[in-house]
């Protein structure tokens, strides 16, 4: 018998944030009547964005991003929610007057021992080959002798695909570790759409620290449908040696095996643009040097070597100065050097920020010079000025204005207003000794 997880789809959708706001209000009303101690904490981020779209239509959109957790500090059960709602104050953006999304929402049980946890609802899963949102269940626990196991299953939460029939995703990961020395995992997932195989992936992940200041990490993913490796991605971190760190990256990506299971046609490559049989080797190096506790310089290089297309490289450096709770500045220069003029640009960025009592001010400028003009424009730039003020310990107000010129807009001015409120409220009385 197969469980039809699609029933969980009804807990999401465009009305979910409105339902969440009602639920949140009810929570605030009823929590004080609980005899047990319950803690409600979270953030409310209210944004209003003003801009023009490509048809010179004025857009004024209000967004509410709400996240909260309800839990008894001494107990093991909690509830977590995150989502947003947009309402247009002037016209319709993206074809709808309003929009919303449930980012996550689940009931969680965490055991006091063995790092065991069970999450039920809309859960985010990061386990080996799986980086998913699932309407279903996620569970994990430590096992004996350094082993650990996790599993998940349910309805895949994806966009831009609407196939009839049963959609299901499930998978798991088995790991072993000696804390501080290594952690290795094997993982697998299977996703079916319309009761047919959509993804079948297996992977190995590794973190190894054989000696102090040497750290190797990475993963390899095998595509069971195309029967070949999708990618190998590994990072070697050395240092710090006299304030210098070296990060080396090596990756191999096979396009026909990596870009399967996409729900957007953007990844259905055409030979005239990108060949599906392409294979790229990426080799990168970053050298980071901390001149002082506040001043850092880094140089980075990434080389792309293709089996079909011409090679490319991206390189540059940046310098950062920052003093905690006071301010700082940064400057970065990078060059993208593809195999023809359409794939070349220079990127410059400079920023400056300062904190003055309860206020902070940020100035940020970004300039991209394209080698070949796009819509007749070679130089795209934007400058933003942001300011914020702490009205209270948990209440902050802020606004910014951005001016930009780019291939799509000769002159684009955008404003953004934000009100951020953090709450942490305890309800009920805790029994003595609990």
């Amino acid at each position, binding site marked *: 018998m197969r469980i039809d997880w699609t029933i969980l789809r009804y807990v999401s959708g465009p009305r979910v944030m409105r339902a969440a706001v009602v639920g949140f209000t009810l929570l605030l009303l009823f929590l004080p009547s609980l005899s047990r101690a319950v803690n409600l904490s979270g953030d409310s981020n209210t944004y209003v964005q003003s801009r023009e779209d490509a048809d010179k239509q004025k857009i004024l959109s209000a967004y509410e991003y709400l996240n909260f957790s309800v839990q008894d500090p001494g107990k093991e059960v909690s509830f977590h929610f995150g989502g947003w709602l947009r309402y247009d104050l002037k016209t319709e953006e*993206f074809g709808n007057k309003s929009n919303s999304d449930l980012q996550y929402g689940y009931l969680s049980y965490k055991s006091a021992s063995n790092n065991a946890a069970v999450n039920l609802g809309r859960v985010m899963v990061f386990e080996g080959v799986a*980086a998913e949102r699932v309407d279903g269940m996620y569970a994990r626990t430590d096992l004996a002798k350094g082993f650990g196991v996790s599993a998940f299953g349910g309805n895949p939460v994806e966009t831009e695909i609407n196939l009839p029939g049963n959609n299901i995703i499930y998978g798991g990961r088995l790991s072993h570790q000696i804390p501080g020395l290594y952690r290795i995992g094997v993982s697998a997932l299977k996703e079916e759409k319309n009761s047919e195989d959509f993804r079948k992936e297996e992977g190995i992940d590794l973190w190894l620290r054989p000696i102090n200041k040497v750290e190797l990490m990475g993963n390899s993913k095998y595509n069971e449908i195309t029967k070949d490796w999708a990618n190998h991605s590994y*990072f070697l971190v050395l240092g710090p040696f006299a304030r210098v760190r070296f990060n080396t990256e090596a990756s191999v990506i096979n396009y026909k095996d990596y870009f399967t*299971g996409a729900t957007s046609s953007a990844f259905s490559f055409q030979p005239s643009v990108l060949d599906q049989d392409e294979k790229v080797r990426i080799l990168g190096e970053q050298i*980071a040097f901390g001149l002082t506790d506040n001043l850092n310089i880094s140089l980075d290089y990434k080389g792309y070597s293709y089996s079909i297309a011409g090679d490319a490289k991206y390189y540059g450096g940046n310098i950062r100065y920052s003093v905690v709770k006071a301010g700082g500045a940064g400057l970065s220069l990078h060059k993208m050097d593809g195999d023809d003029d359409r*794939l070349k640009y220079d990127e410059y960025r400079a920023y400056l920020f300062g904190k003055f009592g309860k206020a902070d001010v940020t100035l*940020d400028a970004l300039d991209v010079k394209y080698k070949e003009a*796009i819509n007749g424009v070679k130089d795209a730039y934007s400058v933003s000025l942001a300011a914020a003020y702490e009205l209270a310990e948990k209440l902050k107000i802020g606004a910014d204005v951005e001016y930009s010129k780019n291939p799509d807009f000769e002159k684009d001015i955008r404003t953004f207003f934000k009100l951020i409120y953090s709450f942490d409220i305890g309800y009920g009385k805790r029994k003595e000794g609990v």
Partner: protein
Amino acid sequence: MKMKTVKIAFLLLLPVFAGMLFACAKTASMAAWHPVEVSYPPMCSDCHTDDRAAMNHTSDFSTRHKFYASQNERTCSVCHKEAFCSDCHAHVEELKPSDKYKDSPELTLPHRGDYLNQHKIDGRINPSSCFPCHGRQNNERCKVCHR
């Protein structure tokens, strides 16, 4: 018939076996929330000497945070709520992270400035950097051009 009996026996014994392994683990769970306030930027090695010491949030940490998250997300969650992850790793999103946090210029936030045009170049050079976030999620706006 024999195969079916083996399958049923396996399914019945699986939770017993898992329960035994769970009972034998005897590890203490990590704290649900970091017990002391952490200064910025978090330098985990100031206090920890095990694998957590490797999670120092140096300026280059963001380039490899995915490896830690895919292996050891529970350590991330001691300091970060899921909302911190979903600010960038979105299911459906209309605001760029760099628009929400213009007052945090030090953060490594994707798609600053005019990325609509720049993505035509970056996407050709390395489409695998787009895929984790836009392959199966947060791609409704891609269809405006990618039909």
